[in-house]
């Protein structure tokens, strides 16, 4: 666990440094994610310890948003005076965004990914997951 946490922080730090040194508009943690991903690709697998700690951290991902969410207190006045546009926009655009992205993605997948078993091992795994998805 400690080793994985160190690894995650190192990736984030490298990402932050790269973003600043190269003046990239991309936040450090996102670059860190790409870095760790590249590392896993090179290594060709996820070590059990990393799998476990990353899973633990991600299971409680939504907890990490709570402190920023409480910041709603600071903006109560604005939220009250502009309640209608804010509520309509947040609900409308979020649900519209989910629907458009998912619908288009599903359409494109059904066109571009014929789900054939070109690569038997990978194909089978995909077919299995697909069936699961169709059932739900």
């Amino acid at each position, binding site marked *: 666990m400690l080793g994985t946490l160190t690894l995650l922080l190192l990736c984030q730090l490298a990402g932050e440094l790269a973003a600043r040194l190269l003046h990239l508009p991309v936040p450090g943690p996102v670059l860190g*994610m790409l870095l760790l991903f590249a590392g896993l*690709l090179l290594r060709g697998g996820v070590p059990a310890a990393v799998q476990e700690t990353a899973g633990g951290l991600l299971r409680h991902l939504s907890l990490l948003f709570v402190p920023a969410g*409480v910041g709603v207190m600071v903006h109560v006045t604005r939220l009250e005076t502009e309640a209608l546009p804010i509520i309509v926009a947040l609900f*409308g*655009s979020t649900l519209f965004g989910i629907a458009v*992205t*998912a619908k*288009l993605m599903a359409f494109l*997948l059904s066109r571009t990914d014929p789900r054939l078993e070109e690569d038997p091992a990978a194909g089978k795994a995909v077919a299995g997951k697909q069936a699961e998805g169709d059932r739900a």
Partner: protein
Amino acid sequence: MSDDLHQIWVYLSANPLAGLTLTLVAYQCGLWLFEKLGRRPVLNPVLIAVVLIAGVLSLSGIDYRTYFDGAQFVHFLLGPATVALAVPLYNQFQEVRRSALALVVALLVGSTASALSAVALVWAFGGSAVTILSMAPKSVTSPIAMGVSEQIGGLPSLTAVFVIITGIVAASLGTWVLNLVRVKDWRARGFGMGVAAHGIGTARALQVNEVAGAFAGLGMGLNGLATALLLPTLYHLIWG
């Protein structure tokens, strides 16, 4: 006696321990209620925790800044958690590679649709310019959204609030809207949640299905990149 109490109060309100503990306890209450009342997505644990903490702070007269001094330790973990998203992404890499073209097209259309519809709706219902600009990047994860908001002249802390509410809306009603438009593919369902509603949408997708979770994490990361690159450019093109 009341002197003791006063001293304890002074200690607690000046120490990060209270804010940190309050955050974890409130979130546990949120999780407990969520489980107890039948895992209804509308009873989102984040929403419950935020309401509880805001209530406690208002009643006790502690300001947000003092609370955040403690809670920032939780907030800080957003960075390492974002990095950790590489793991589910790697686990699903085979699938991701197979659907690369669909991913890119859906990302660009979905990202634009979220941002433009948000801006258009605030404008149409008479919101102020600052609110419009703060609203534009609200679909991406908070550190990115706050950075973009600052670049285009919004209020970063207001953007952070919009980001969280966006996530809560998606976690509460996302499943319903995905069923409504009849999308069954887990890859598409997850990707939609990640693109439109960043980490909270991803957390919800991870709860439901591992494939959906991986695609949500990918959607969140990609839209973070796309928004960070495109929105400031778009803003300068339109407003100069």
